[in-house]
Structure formats: structure tokens, C-alpha cells
């Protein structure tokens, strides 16, 4: 087992910079997931660590040894490839023992290690089969087996589950987590699937366009995304982003919404909008009549009704939300600046407001998606789109008025100009 260090690692193809000054230290026995969208450079970084790609600048250290010029076979790493890369002319046992036979390890030891790994991965009955006779999941297990028989210092996984179906992916994810607990080895795992990142990682490195966006534990990254890209990339469904401005009225600080910010990581990286994280909120199904009975809640405006009926030319009348002082202590510095409020869909509370001070936003239900135990509600407050997650079954039809409020504690504020986080 060993630690891994990336010191200012850069990769260039001519003028094109693929990775720009990556710095990170991965501790011994740590499980680090490198996550990012396609083309962000995460696989290139892993391949550079494996020795399959040249390093343009900077240095990589494995177990405190500078390995930039070290041949892949001498780095004491094992890699599980995205496409399995099993040797098709060898049986499962031969595939798994290939590296050991190259090392001229005694036959007895080779056999012992292969049978041990086969036992862990339930491959005992498949040892004499050829790769073409295996299913996708079995092939992936063989690829993992080929890595673990070597007892390397560092395991590298390059999107190992991306070719498997959803059910198998879930099973293998659990298997990999168990394997890490058992082997207590250093693991570097590349994926674009944030669910894999969140569930497997001890720490996550979020990459975008070759630049490290954030390094932290899954919960840090989920709760305190440092910029719009991370906020939009981590979390499913994506965080709601709302454009607006900070207004100060005496002691009170307000966020005045002006429109929906572009959703998704790419837009999020450049633009600034407030973001909310969706979680299963304690949704209390509200019927039209119950809304109607609640005199304190605003009624659905004609404009909203028009919007819900699919018509356009809706007037832009924004809403205002009070920002708690702990969220933005230096509010004065951001007064009248364009910012983005982010809130995850599970922090959008629907139809239950015991707190009198809570800002209630009147929205209209556009579409609801029933996902079994929960339901996604696509809402619209004038021209601002909001996604909320509630428990199933939310018994409302499209066009219904749905009052919502945001969980103030989990609101995120970002500078619209540079996308960086401004809230605490």
C-alpha cells in the first residue's frame, strides 16, 4: 500500500491543455474518486499515473518515489480498464495469473493467489472459460480479479462499471466497496457517475476542463460546493439555479429572483445563479381546494394559469426570499450584484409551512414524475423553473397552484460573474 502525490501535473497536446496543474495528495489506503464530465481529463490523469501517458509537466509520486519515467510494470499498480481488456486467447485463470507468471512466481503461489481472488469474486467455476464465454458482469469481475492477484500498491479503476446495466452496476458497486474494506488498499477510481462517486469515495476530486474544481469528502462536496460547476454536477436531480440580486433593507437581507439560471454543469461553471439541492421533503399533498382555503397564501395568478396551460408571454414578476444572516455575513459587499441562488430539489419544501417567517413562493405545477417512492415536481414561479422532490403520491394535476418554500439552511449563493461560492 502507498500514498500517491500529483504535483502540478500538466498534460498538453501541442497548444491544447488537457490537464492544468493538478495537485493532490492521496493518503495510504484512501479511496479517492476522480469525477467529472466526459472530456474533463480524468482518464488522462489516471493513465498518466499508470504510465500509459506521458506527463508534460509536473511530477507523480507513488509511495514517495518519483515515477514520471518509470515503466508501467515497475510502478506496482494494477488497473481495471473501462472495456475490461481481457486477453481473449487466454482462459480466466490464465488472464488472472498473467502478471504473476511474467514475474516468474512459483507455480504454487500463482495457483494460491488465483484461487483466493477467484473465491473473493465468485469466479471459481469460471476459471477454465474463455472471456468470450462470459457475461459482461463476469468479465468485469475477471478484470478486477486480474488486478487483485498482483497485490499492488495502488489500484486504478477507469470507469469500470460504465458498460454494465443498472442492476449489475449497483451490485458491482457494492462489491468494489466491500473489496476496498477487505484489501485496505489505496484506490483511485475514475467515473463520470456521481452516484458512484458519492457512494464509494472517501474523498472526491471534481475535475472540469482539466482543472480541479474541488477536493473533499462526498458530504463536503454535496453540502458546500465551491462553485456553480460542482453544485450543478454533484447531486441528482440537479440543483435549481435562480438568477437574482441581493437587496438590503435595514438589517434584513433579501434575494430578489429575476429568472432561472441555465442548468447543468457547463452553464453553472460560467454563470452565477442561486442553487437549491433537492431532497425528499416532507411533502404534504395539497389539493386545489386546500390552497384555496388558506387565506394567507397567494392564489394562482392568471399569468401562472396561462403558463401552466402552455401559453407564453407571461409577465416576469419575481419573488423575494429572506437570506439568513449566517448564510451571507458580508451581505453588504454583494449588494445589488448579480448572484445565483442554488437549492437542491430536496430542499424545496412543498405545501407545509408551519414557520410563519418562511417565504412562500407561489408556483404552478407543470409536470410531475412518479418514481415509485418519490415524485419529481416540475414547477414554475412566473418564468422561474423550480424542481422539487416530494414523497409519492403527490395528488395534483398539472396547472395546480403549489406553494413552495426553500430550506434556508441549505441554500447556496454564488457569484454570477465567476461562479464561485459566496455563501458560508
Amino acid at each position, binding site marked *: 500500500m502507498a500514498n500517491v502525490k500529483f504535483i502540478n501535473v500538466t498534460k498538453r497536446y501541442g497548444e491544447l491543455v488537457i490537464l492544468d496543474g493538478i495537485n493532490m495528495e492521496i493518503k495510504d489506503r484512501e479511496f479517492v474518486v476522480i469525477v467529472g464530465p466526459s472530456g474533463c481529463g480524468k482518464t488522462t490523469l489516471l493513465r498518466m499515473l499508470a504510465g500509459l501517458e506521458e506527463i508534460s509537466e509536473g511530477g507523480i509520486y507513488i509511495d514517495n518515489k518519483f515515477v514520471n519515467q518509470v515503466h508501467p510494470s515497475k510502478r506496482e499498480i494494477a488497473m481495471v*480498464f473501462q472495456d475490461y481488456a481481457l486477453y481473449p486467447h487466454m482462459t480466466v485463470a490464465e488472464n488472472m495469473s*498473467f502478471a504473476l507468471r511474467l514475474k516468474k512466481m512459483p507455480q504454487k503461489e500463482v495457483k494460491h493467489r488465483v484461487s483466493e481472488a477467484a473465491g473473493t469474486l465468485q469466479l471459481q467455476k469460471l476459471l477454465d472459460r474463455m472471456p468470450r464465454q462470459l457475461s459482461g458482469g463476469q468479465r468485469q469481475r475477471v478484470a478486477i480479479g486480474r488486478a487483485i492477484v498482483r497485490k499492488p500498491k495502488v489500484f486504478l479503476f477507469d470507469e469500470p462499471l460504465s458498460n454494465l446495466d443498472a442492476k449489475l452496476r449497483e451490485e458491482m458497486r457494492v462489491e468494489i466497496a466491500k473489496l476496498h474494506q477487505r484489501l485496505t488498499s489505496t484506490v483511485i477510481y475514475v467515473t463520470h457517475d456521481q452516484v458512484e462517486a458519492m457512494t464509494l469515495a472517501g474523498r472526491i476530486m471534481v475535475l472540469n476542463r482539466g482543472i480541479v474544481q474541488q477536493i473533499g469528502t462526498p458530504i463536503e462536496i454535496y453540502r458546500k460546493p465551491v462553485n456553480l460547476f460542482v453544485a450543478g454536477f454533484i447531486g441528482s436531480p440537479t440543483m435549481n439555479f435562480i438568477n437574482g440580486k441581493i437587496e438590503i433593507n435595514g438589517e434584513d437581507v433579501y434575494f430578489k429572483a429575476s429568472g432561472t439560471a441555465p442548468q447543468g454543469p457547463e452553464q453553472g461553471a460560467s454563470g452565477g445563479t442561486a442553487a437549491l439541492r433537492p431532497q425528499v421533503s416532507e411533502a404534504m399533498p395539497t389539493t386545489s381546494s386546500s390552497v384555496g382555503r388558506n387565506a394567507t397564501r397567494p392564489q394562482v395568478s392568471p399569468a401562472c394559469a396561462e403558463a401552466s396551460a402552455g401559453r407564453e408571454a407571461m409577465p416576469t414578476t419575481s419573488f423575494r426570499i429572506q437570506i439568513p444572516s449566517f448564510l451571507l455575513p458580508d451581505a453588504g459587499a454583494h449588494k445589488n450584484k448579480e448572484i445565483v441562488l442554488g437549492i437542491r430539489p430536496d430542499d424545496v419544501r412543498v405545501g407545509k409551512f408551519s414557520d410563519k417567517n418562511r417565504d412562500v413562493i407561489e408556483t404552478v405545477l407543470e409536470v410531475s414524475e412518479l418514481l415509485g417512492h418519490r415524485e419529481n415536481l416540475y414547477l414554475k414561479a412566473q418564468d422561474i423553473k423550480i424542481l422539487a422532490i416530494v414523497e409519492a403520491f403527490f395528488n395534483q394535476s398539472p396547472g395546480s397552484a403549489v406553494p413552495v418554500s426553500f430550506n434556508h439552511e441549505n441554500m447556496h449563493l454564488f457569484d454570477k460573474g465567476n461562479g464561485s461560492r459566496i455563501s458560508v
Partner: protein
Amino acid sequence: MKDKLKMQVTSHYRILRSPARGGGKSQARKKLIRNFLIHFGIILFSIVCIYPLLRIFSVSIRPGDRVISTDLSIIPDSAALLSYARLLKETHFLRWLWNSLIITMTTSFIGVSLASTAAYAFSRFKFPGKKFALLLLLSTQMIPAGMLILPLFLMIMKLGLINTYLGMIIAYSVSSLPFSIWILKGYYDTIPRSLEEAALVDGTSMIGAFYRIILPLSTPALSIAFLFNFTMAWNEYLVARVVLFSSKQYTWTLGLFELQGQFITQWGMFAAGSMLVTIPVLLVFLYSSKWLISGLTLGSVKG
């Protein structure tokens, strides 16, 4: 009740079947005609291919005075192996066969060895002039063989290799290499690079990955390249004509030509020789066929 139900089911079945049966008949007729035409074509081409062989065989076993005959029987009356015996006794036929075999086998092995490594470099590495070199190789195949005779002769003469095996081997190898390189490069391109990368991580060198992983997976393409080299060198006449002078160094193509005199041609011996030279080719083809397997890389990567 049961009978009634059975009748109903039967009649219903007939109704359902009746329109299909009419359509089925015409379809079956069409299929029959199509099959007949296909088989007729195949049989016709087979006859065109096989008849000359049978005719040569027939000539090779005819007595000397009945070689040119209008008799269509394949095995004539008083058939004998006299021409074979005379060929082996009165000429250097075995020597010619041996010469051909040595030149052909060496050419094939050298050709495949050089082409397999050169093609790997073209397939896997980036280097200046790669595209140009590939095009240059391809362009050599577009020049008619006759045009190359004189430069080849001059080159071999300057090397002092006239009338030697080595001269022939060099001449044949250089002319078959470009095609073999293109065949093998095309095949290597289909083998996923991740296999070599996995081998590198597992502990092989680049050359080790080539020999342990790539070559075993390339046997179909290697067989094709070998067969191409073999048949090309085995049947070649023009280059042999200008490089080889002494009868003892002749390949079989030159040797058989010697049987054709100014006033008389030994057709019986000529045919017997032609029959005998097909044997090595047949053996090589039969042996190579076991390597011509498709789908060797199945299961290696996600398809």
C-alpha cells in the same frame, strides 16, 4: 361437443391457412428457381475451374503417343505413370522443386516477420512521414511487375547475387512486403489498444506485449500474409528468368519451361510436373486453414 369443437378449430385453421398456402406455393417456386440458378452458376464455374486440372492430370498419365488426342476420357486406356517416372529420372525436377521450396519458404518467413513488425509500427506509433511511407508502400503495388525486372536485375547484379538463392529471396521479399504490411496493419488496427496497455501494466515490455498478446491474436492475418507470400514466390517466373542462369539453380517454373523445346514439347512430363508442384501448395493451404479463424478477439473488450 368435443368433435364439434375440433371441427370448428379445424375449419378455422383451414381459413387461416388457405391464403398463405397459395402465397407459399409461389414463394416455394421462386425459391426453387433461384436455387437452381445459383447451383447452375456454381456448377458451371466449378467445371471451368476443375476441367483444366483434370485435363492436365489426364495428359500426365497418357502414354507418349496419345498426349494430343480428342478423347475426352479423364483416365485413358493404358494409363501409366511413365511421364512422372521420366520427369523424376531424366530431369532435375526434384532439385527444381527443392530450390523453389527453399526460396519460397524463406521468402514467406522473412516477409511475414518483417511485415508483422513493420505493420505494428505503422498501426501503433506516430512518427514523421508515416502517411507518406504507407502511401509509398501502396504505390509500389501499382507498378506493373515487368517494369521492375530491369532495376531488380541491376540491383541483384551489383550485389553479386545473380544465380543465388539470396538474390531471389531479396527480390521476392521486397515485392511482397508492401502488400503484407497493409494486410497486417489493417488487422492490428482492429485489436483494441487497451489489451497492450493491460499487458504493459501487468509487466511486459512493448515488445513483450506484441509477442504475447498481439501476435497470437493476429494468426488469421499472419496466415493470409504467409499464403500470399508463398503463392507469389512459388508461382513466380519473370524474376527467376532474369536472376537464375544455371539449370541446377532453377525453380520449378523455369525447369518446366525447359521441357518445352524448339521442335518438341514434352507435354506428358510437363503435365506430370504441373501436377506435382500443386502438392506443396495444397499442403500449405490445408495447414494454414486451421489458423484462419474469425472472432479471435471476441470477449476481450466490451463489444
